[in-house]
């Protein structure tokens, strides 16, 4: 019996293991190889050092000039915008996932489809449409003016970039949380209530810990694409936001694949470490 199990197990996991090795692991060595070589493919750590030491001067709003570490600043800005977007997605998406999971089967199906529909329209096009809405002379300001309110300046600000990121990756937050919540046994919630928990207590002590795997994958699925995007920042940020994705693309276009690979390599390591910590946190919670 046990033997059967392991045979089946090997059979089902074999194609994926092979695939993962060939198309996930091996290409990473190419990134590392490029990151640690110069254009003549001789070993160098110069690309990595450049990331941490390159400096440039920027002028503040008050006209003061200061020296900054170019790539560390770019990295920090990308991380900041991505984190803000992820938190907003989580705060907005969690209640929706909960409402969905408690609705009738039919409503669930309709709402899930409604949430997915916008994603089936090309994201370049959707971002374009946001430009039309958020422009100073755009639809939103037209509406505000017609009801006698002051127009808002949104396009080209951090707010616009965050709106774009939240919009584009929002469903990636809702779906994983929803799919975990839909499986949650409603009896557990009733039991908690019977044992004297108030609504907030049920949420904090029962629903949230149980939905944690979904929350973790939701966070991953929003954070990663938003940290490396360059299209949204170009279109909605009026080309004034230079993020880590722009930096990699810029180096590729300038035909400097080795430095592009180095930036990618560092980004990858940082994200891997973050995710490992998050996974550990999730596991410890699940055990508790």
């Amino acid at each position: 019996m046990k033997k059967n199990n392991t045979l089946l197990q090997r059979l089902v996991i074999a194609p994926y293991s092979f695939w993962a090795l060939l198309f996930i692991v091996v290409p990473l060595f190419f990134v590392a190889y490029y990151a640690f070589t110069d254009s003549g493919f001789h070993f160098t750590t110069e690309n990595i050092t450049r990331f941490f030491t390159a400096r440039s001067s920027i002028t503040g709003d008050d006209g003061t000039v200061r020296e900054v570490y170019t790539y560390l600043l770019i990295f920090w800005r990308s991380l900041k915008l991505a984190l803000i977007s992820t938190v907003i997605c989580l705060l907005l998406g969690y209640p929706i996932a909960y409402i969905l999971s408690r609705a009738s089967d039919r409503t669930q199906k309709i709402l899930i489809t409604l949430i997915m529909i916008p994603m089936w329209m090309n994201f370049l096009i959707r971002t374009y449409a946001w430009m039309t809405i958020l422009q100073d002379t755009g639809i939103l300001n037209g509406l505000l003016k017609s009801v006698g309110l002051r127009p808002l300046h949104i396009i080209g600000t951090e707010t616009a970039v965050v709106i774009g990121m939240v919009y584009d990756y929002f469903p990636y937050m809702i779906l994983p949380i929803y799919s975990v919540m839909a499986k949650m046994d409603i009896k557990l919630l009733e039991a908690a209530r019977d044992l004297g928990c108030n609504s907030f207590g049920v949420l904090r002590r029962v629903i949230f810990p149980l939905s944690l795997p979904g929350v973790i994958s939701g966070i991953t699925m929003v954070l990663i694409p938003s940290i490396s995007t360059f299209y949204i920042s170009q279109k909605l940020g009026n080309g004034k936001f230079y993020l880590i994705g722009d930096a990699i693309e810029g180096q590729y276009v300038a035909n400097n694949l080795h430095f592009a690979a180095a930036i990618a390599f560092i980004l990858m390591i940082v994200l891997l470490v973050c995710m490992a910590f998050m996974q550990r946190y999730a596991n410890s919670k699940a055990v508790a």
Partner: protein
Amino acid sequence: MKPAAKIYTAVILLFLFAPIVILLVFSFNASKSLSVMSGSSLYWYRELFRDAETLGAVRNTLLLAISAALISTVMGTAAAVGIHRLRSKYLRAAMDTVTNIPMINPDIITGISLMLMFVFVGRLFGAATSLNFATILIAHITFCLPYVILQVLPKLQQMDTSLPEAAMDLGCTPMRAFLKVEIPEIMPGIVTGLIMAFTLSLDDFVISYFTSGNGFETLPIRIYNMTKKTVTPKMYALSTIIFFVILALLIMSNLIDTAAPVVEKPTRERKIRTAAQKRRIRLAGAIGAVLAVSFIVVMIAGAPKKPVLNVYNWGEYISDGSEDSFNAIKGFETWYEENYGSPVEINYSTFASNEDMYAKLSSGAVSYDVVIPSDYMIARMADEGMLLPLNFDNIPNYQYIGENFRGLYYDPEDLYSVPYTYSFVGVIWDANRVDEADTGDWDLMWNSKYAGDILQFNNSRDAFATAQYKLGLDVNSADREDWNLALQELKLQQPLVKSYVMDEIYNMMESGEAAIAAYYAGDYFTMLDAEADDVDLRFYMPEQTNYFIDAMCIPSCCQNKELAEAFINYMLEEEPAIANAEYICYGCPNSLVYESEEYAEDMGEEAMEILYPDLEHFSELYNSFAYRNLSPDMLGYVNSLWEELKIN
């Protein structure tokens, strides 16, 4: 649902659908603008159905998404089951880590790393091109797999392990227990995984961009490559159609649902389905699978058997039959069959910039027969042996190329290239907001009176050039100090700049969002056609400005040189040449075009004056103001200066 929940859901849906409403409305726009409505019409829908290239891209995108979603769902579900049963803690951790990699890797890295590997393997086996449909499919499956696994794995973890054990105790074989008990239990995860994989594949741009091969152009790539010209409402029309198709499917599936008895809340009882329901589900599944498989078979079997000419050009840079124009691509196919008696097919692909094109071609990942780069890139490619000398016996129409467009610096002996278009950079301004006395030179773009109304290029070479011309510096300087001065000038301008733009310029100038911008001469007319009522766009050329030429060349990876030369020759024939010149709206170096009265009439007086200002002295002006190729060292330096500007 409680009222509060209802309101909240409605607000979220409003947010999700706001841009969709914009798409719907503007797809009916009578003009080309995406921000100014000028009457409603079905014009763009008719355009869409005539555009074979875009429809082909839609077909490619669907083919890819369906294949990738099906394969990754099957493989990913199996993998999740396998991972879930792993007893060894270390193996389990290793699998989890590997699975996480494509998700933690930004897509640009996944794309580049896979491309590097494919090219390496392709060279190892001596293949002419290392990228094709298989490579882009592999890439898509690779990035979809983790999403499927991450949907299925939590379901397995939540599943009561006693369920399959009970089934086996009751006499099920492990296989049967798996199929009858586990699969239904994890089905929601599998379905979500499948839908996610399909959606991700459909929407992916970056990874496809790096791993797609000759002529296999997906919709996102096609849209992205329109960035020098502009995205038209045609794409909105396409999105609108997609929207209604999905809506129809949704309503249909709901009708089927209502016919079946409504099942109670999500508890265990939900799993018990009636026999009729099971049959219906199986039937739906079978129909879906048959449709998907037959679609893929038809697509692959339907691939052309004729000789294929691979053409690589800028986005929106050939008359393709849209807007009632002559279709130069189909035109060549017909012309060739009439003259040479054998059928031929053009496989047409687009790029967004010279640098993108160079990166793809030089990696050996793709092979094209005809490319249309700009002057400085031609010089670089010729230097590096990437171009083949042309046999002008096969291109007799070269005689129509004006004297002024021969022997220019990038190809002094006219060996490698046949000029296709030329143009120059000028300043576009809104006469309703800008004082005419301030216009005339580059100073307008630094005039603090118009702070917040100025647009600057979002590509380093063109942006630096505006500063260099303003300061009277050499745009091709090998002296870093010159570039530093230009950077200081751009930094001075920065507080006045509203936005750094490429194709966004169309929307912003047409709607009056900005009042001053530098751009390529011919594109001004596109904006003029769509300007809002309170906008009055004008154009002028500063004395010193960039002149550029895009020319047809044959790269060294060409597979069929004579066919490529026949294509170049055909592009110089009167009919396609005029059609292209009218469609692209740039200047044309072909005397059959600029001497044609019909063409002059179509373009109108103002356009002729702007596009053909001083042909007598063209080569002189051109040679003094055109961009030259910069050394790799200098390119790197300019790029770092650009980064310094952009992080401010």
